């Protein structure tokens, strides 16, 4: 009797565990895209770009409009990523660069650009409200969001979650190739590590920085188009993702692209396991508990550089 009864419980526990692992991976993957966007901008310009949440939601609205007109999610995804890159480049070239040119010294050097990105976040969200209104919109996922069946039970991991994982993995692979195998990647790394030596070696560091913003914008654009299906689209839709992306980036040490991905995965697992096995109320606090624990154990983040660098 006991044997017969125990098997389904064991099966339930197993599918619960598998579900938690898979949802951890897919939410971690989305946090990773946002974390990468923040790290890319931090490395190239020493700014925490709070406007990234606005940029990503704006490009997702652009994608939404493309879907309304053409019905194609895939075209919308492409347009959102490309417009994310353009928007990132434009913000750096015409907004951030003039600010950096005008402030040269004092504590304001650290503060002003960050405040500027916060202001920009508000402006972008207001513009979205004017164009698309404040009501919730939705984007339909391009593939099924119904959960897979494991041992006869439907789990909370769908074909769409799998697609997200694959896309994020591909994006990471592209970034690795770009950064490690190409001249552009070498210029990006040199400019991030030592702008002065890069300039003295003939690299146009200002343009390279703008390129860093463009890649970050594209990453944010991808994050938005993958995050919003299954959720709602409204001007503040990406705010929470910005916070999680930021936490993941800090856990990873802010400097390292690899660290950002690892930080995002740690966060994804912590949040999903805490909400699955302890309480759903822990969704938001878990991120900060993990952050505080990591910073107490390793104040520079998991993959942070030991030496401090100036802008």
């Amino acid at each position, binding site marked *: 009797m006991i044997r017969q009864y125990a098997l389904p419980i064991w099966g339930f526990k197993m599918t619960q565990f598998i579900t938690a692992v898979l949802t951890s991976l897919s939410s971690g993957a989305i946090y990773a895209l946002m974390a990468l966007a923040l790290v890319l901008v931090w490395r190239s310009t020493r700014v925490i770009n709070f406007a990234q949440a606005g940029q990503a939601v704006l490009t997702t609205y652009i994608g939404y409009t493309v879907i309304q007109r053409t019905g194609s999610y895939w075209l919308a995804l492409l347009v959102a990523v490309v417009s994310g890159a353009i928007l990132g480049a434009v913000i750096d070239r015409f907004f951030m660069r003039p600010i950096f040119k005008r402030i040269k010294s004092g504590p304001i050097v650290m503060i002003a650009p960050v405040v500027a990105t916060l202001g920009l976040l508000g402006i972008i969200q207001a513009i979205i409200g004017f164009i698309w209104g404040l009501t919730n919109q939705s984007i339909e996922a391009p593939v099924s969001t119904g959960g897979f069946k494991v041992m006869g039970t439907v789990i909370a991991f769908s074909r769409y979650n799998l697609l997200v994982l694959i896309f994020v993995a591909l994006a990471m692979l592209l970034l690795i190739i770009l950064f490690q195998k190409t*001249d552009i990647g*070498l*210029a990006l*790394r*040199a400019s991030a*590590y*030592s702008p*002065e*030596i*890069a*300039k*003295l*070696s*003939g*690299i*146009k*560091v200002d343009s390279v920085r703008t390129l860093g913003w463009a890649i970050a914008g594209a990453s944010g654009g991808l994050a938005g188009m993958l995050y919003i299906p299954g959720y709602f689209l409204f001007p503040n839709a990406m705010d929470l993702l910005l916070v999680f992306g930021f936490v993941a980036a800090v856990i990873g040490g802010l400097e390292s692209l690899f660290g950002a991905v690892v930080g995002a995965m740690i966060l994804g697992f912590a949040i999903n396991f805490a909400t699955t096995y302890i309480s759903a109320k822990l969704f938001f606090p878990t991120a900060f508990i993990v952050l505080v624990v990591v910073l107490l154990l390793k104040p520079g983040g998991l993959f942070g*550089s030991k030496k401090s660098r100036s802008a």
Partner: protein
Amino acid sequence: MSLVVSNLTIDHGAIRAINNVSFTVPQGQLAAIIGANGAGKTTLLRTLSGLKEAASGSASWNGDSILGARPEDLARSGIMHVSDGKSVIAELSVKENLALPGIWRKDKKDVALATSEVIELFPILGQRLSQSAGSLSGGERQMLAIGRALIARPKLLLLDEPSLGLAPLIVEQIFQTIKSLVKKMNLTVVLVEQNAMGALKIADEGVVLNLGSVVAVDSAEKLLNDPAVRAAYLGF
């Protein structure tokens, strides 16, 4: 064909770092700029390479003004500055450090040729290509910094304290290499040094700076034999 600096004045914050400095370095010559710590040598070089703005005066290379130009544009036009503190990017590998000028140079064949010439000149770099530049010794870093500059095929090389912190034997080796490069590559070199004796020995001309002003300009040989210079800067 020469570097002409005239009446150059540079401020460093509220302090006047360089005051009304003039000198000329003809092409193919090595000029040593010597003086004690705080004489303004580094500030002068940083201005010539576009990292710092001048307050007044002029500086030109082959007749073109170089003041106000961006460092990356000057580098691309053949003015390479090897800054002090062993200017390598520690996080990149030796190979990647050497590859930096190759990013923008059009003639990829010549980049490959220049790279093999640099490795021939500094064989130790060839053995350390995949190591991070941060793991190199001080002397090796200096070789890497000079080597990187050479891959850009510079016409004018601005060297800031290449001897800083190096063992005497390595200093001698670096100085001899610099001297041989001037002849072999028809380079013009401005060498800023606290090691006045070593610098003047390999230089054609010398400029002595004190508290931002020129106190003597002459051939290096004459400066080496000048009792006042000897007493103040060479220590005997």
